[in-house]
């Protein structure tokens, strides 16, 4: 198969995926027990019926479901994601604002937890039952079983409130204009939420890698390598990393979508202005355009995450390249 064909197939797959996701989420939100009109005007409103009717027709709230969906689809195809009912602002604007913050935090936490978690697992797996191994295992089990919002509150109260090392929340300094803010300010504000998300995501990958290392270490070819006189560094480089990296990367990419869940919690605790809080607002207010927009972007994000992992497989293990881009 040539590359053009592959790319065409890939795009087709993406379009089908997005289409199905949009239909499913549309059905879910329109059937949710939330009245968008009610959340728009509030229960304690004294609007006349005339004004209410204008609102209903402006937002198309009483049209049949398939008509609403089709008109949404038509607008999206022409590049217009619509206007959020809850925020009264264009959906694309809200998503762009929020996503630019979320993506930094998510990827920072995801990459850090992947790298640190992998090496922790590697080193504790080489010397099973050493003190390092025991401490790491205990640490991971505690982290795996503690909810991330609790972790966030602990981190916040220790490092921000008690010690004052980090800011209490937000992605920018309090009371400062953009012109008065530096990139260091932004990194400084990113650190505590990123560390928290990293810590909460690290347990799984560490335990998993350790398990894999144990398996490999017990294999015949390691025994043979030792017999050949290879030292630990050589064994790690030549055998362990090659054989444990792929499962670790697979696991880390499969947790790509879980990041969104952790994000929403971290955003709440650290008042970080990401996509999670916008998604919550959209869902609670029956804001169909915004929720669909966020779902689309998230689906794209996860899709490309999996796509990248396939490319990386190929780089690590050239045998997989034969199977094609989207093996």
């Amino acid at each position, binding site marked *: 198969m040539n590359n053009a064909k592959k790319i065409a197939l890939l795009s087709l797959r993406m379009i089908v995926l997005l289409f199905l996701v949009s239909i499913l989420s549309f059905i879910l939100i329109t059937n949710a*027990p*939330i*009245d968008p009109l*009610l959340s*728009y*005007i*509030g*229960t*304690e*409103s*004294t*609007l*006349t019926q*005339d*004004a209410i009717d*204008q*609102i209903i*027709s402006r*937002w198309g709230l009483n049209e049949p479901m398939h008509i609403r969906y089709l008109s949404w689809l038509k607008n999206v195809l022409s590049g217009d994601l619509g206007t959020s009912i*809850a*925020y*009264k*602002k*264009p959906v694309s*604007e*809200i998503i762009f*604002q*929020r996503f*630019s*913050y979320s*993506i*930094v935090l998510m*990827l*920072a936490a995801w*990459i850090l937890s992947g*790298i640190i978690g992998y090496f922790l697992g590697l080193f504790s797996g080489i010397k099973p039952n050493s003190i390092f191994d025991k401490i790491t295992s205990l640490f991971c089990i505690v982290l795996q079983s503690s909810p991330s919002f609790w972790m966030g509150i602990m981190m*916040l109260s220790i490092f921000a*409130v008690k010690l*004052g090392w980090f800011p*209490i*929340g*937000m992605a*920018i300094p*309090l*009371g400062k*204009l953009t*012109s008065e803010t530096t*990139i260091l300010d*932004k*990194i400084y504000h*990113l650190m505590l939420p990123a560390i928290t998300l990293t810590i909460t995501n690290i347990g799984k990958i560490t335990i998993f890698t350790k398990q894999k290392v144990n398996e490999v270490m017990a294999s015949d070819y390691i025994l043979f390598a030792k017999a050949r006189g290879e030292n630990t560094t050589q064994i790690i480089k030549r055998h362990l990393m090659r054989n444990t990296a792929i499962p670790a990367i697979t696991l880390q990419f499969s947790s790509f979508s879980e990041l969104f869940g952790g994000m929403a919690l971290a955003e709440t*605790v*650290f*008042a970080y*202005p990401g996509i999670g809080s*916008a998604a919550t*607002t959209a869902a609670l207010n029956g804001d169909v355009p915004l929720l669909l927009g966020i779902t689309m972007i998230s689906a794209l994000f996860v899709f490309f995450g999996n796509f990248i992992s396939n490319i*990386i497989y190929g*780089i*690590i293990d050239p045998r997989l390249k034969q199977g094609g881009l989207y093996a």
Partner: protein
Amino acid sequence: MKKIVYMVILSMMVIIAAGCQSPTTQSKNKTSDTSNNNAIIAYVGTAIFDSSLDPIKGAMSYGYSFTNSALIKVDTDSNYIGDMATEWEISEDGLKYTFNIRENVKFSDGSDMTAKDIVFTYEQIKNNQAENENVDLTRLESVTSIGDHQVIFTLSQPFSPFLDITSMVGIVPSSSYDSAQFDYTPIGTGPWKVIQYYANQQIIVEPNEYYYDGIPSIDRVTLVYLNDETALAAAKSGQLDVVMVGSNYSNEQVDNMAMIPLETMDIRMISLPVNTESNYNGTIIGNNVTSDINVRKALSIGIDRQTIINHALGGIGKPATSFTNNLIWSDNNQFDDNKVEEAKEILENAGWIDSDNDGIREKAGIKCEFDIYTTEDRYPLATALAENALELGIKINSHSSNWDEISSKMNSQGVVWGWGQFSPTVISSLFKTTDPDGSYDNVVGYSNDNVDTLIDNALGSTNHDDAIKYWKEAQMCANNDYPYLYIVNIEHSYFVSNRLDISINTQIPHPHGHGSPIICNMKDWTIK
């Protein structure tokens, strides 16, 4: 392997660079250099961030706008006084409202405000009514200007609450109105202008140097978006000057800050269906227990509101038996409660007797028992009431729920409501006869010809004083039947830094607004 490491590093850098260009909206106005000593940071809830700041889309219509002033405003006694208008007149037939416009007022961009801008603002809302859920201009037929300093509104029918509407609409400039820009940095004639807007993080405002009524003395105010717990934590580490807190946190101690409760017009009441149970188009409406006026009256005089407030709200708030007296149209029907013996006597005379000694009264085989549905935030109030009502032999089952379920129960069971607005139209919503068609008006099914006539008279009155008189009479008349059980006039609690004076004397009574109304007089705040 090296390739992966490079890719990872490279992607990290790209991501961080992308994040650093996060979009913010900065107004074109030049900002003055400010020393931090004369700047404050405040957390007043998140309501300000939830929607647009554009008055055309209903922003800040509860009477505490800081960027866009309206034609008139309320003073500390809830009377209307001129703001962008200096005086106004209502025609004999109640159809024409003539406003004389204040001269020499400038917008924050330096341009002059004239009658044209007012006409533009109202026409813009009327043409985009669906974008504005707070200001209802469907009864406005036309608005015209005469010269630069007079505006005439013509209504399609007499509607006295139109005056309230003119206090809710912030004026925007006709020449530079831009729907997208005004979501974040509106241009107005108010005391403040938005310098920078960070979505869901902070709004930074500085004084409008063209403000007509004295430029604020604080150089910069930052309104931040946090949650209640994080805000309190930030206050404890000394980073905030004003923090709104829920009543459950009002007993906390914060260094260098004082706890200040502020007066509101916000009340909590329970609707009690007044008709017996029946089937209306397939849904059950009415309630066989609350339909007995004796039960409703016994509850109203027999419960101990102060105890309920102590249990549910940590003692913050005042007992209420009617709308608050800081509303000029309130009948202010205050009476003593906790008359347990009298309440018991009423119930017994009406035939509600506890014959099986389970603590709950019965009458003709029916237990004196009903449900109250409420959203989670008001649930403590419902349970505290239930506990109190048990002493009278009335059993209330309180349920924490969502509005979807509440809607299905509101015509047959009790519901906790919150009201707090300057406009008396709430009286019409509460008491005027309507069909139980699923709307939130008059869910108790109250119907009284006399009250209906009084409400019609109030809506159709051609002058403000008559309207108020009719509104009061309508309430008095309806409250004799106790269709609603008034419980509490809540208070908004804030921690305020000792270095800041929030000018309590010029605070208007706070409307329903989750803490934001404290900024109503921000122009009068000073650093000590």
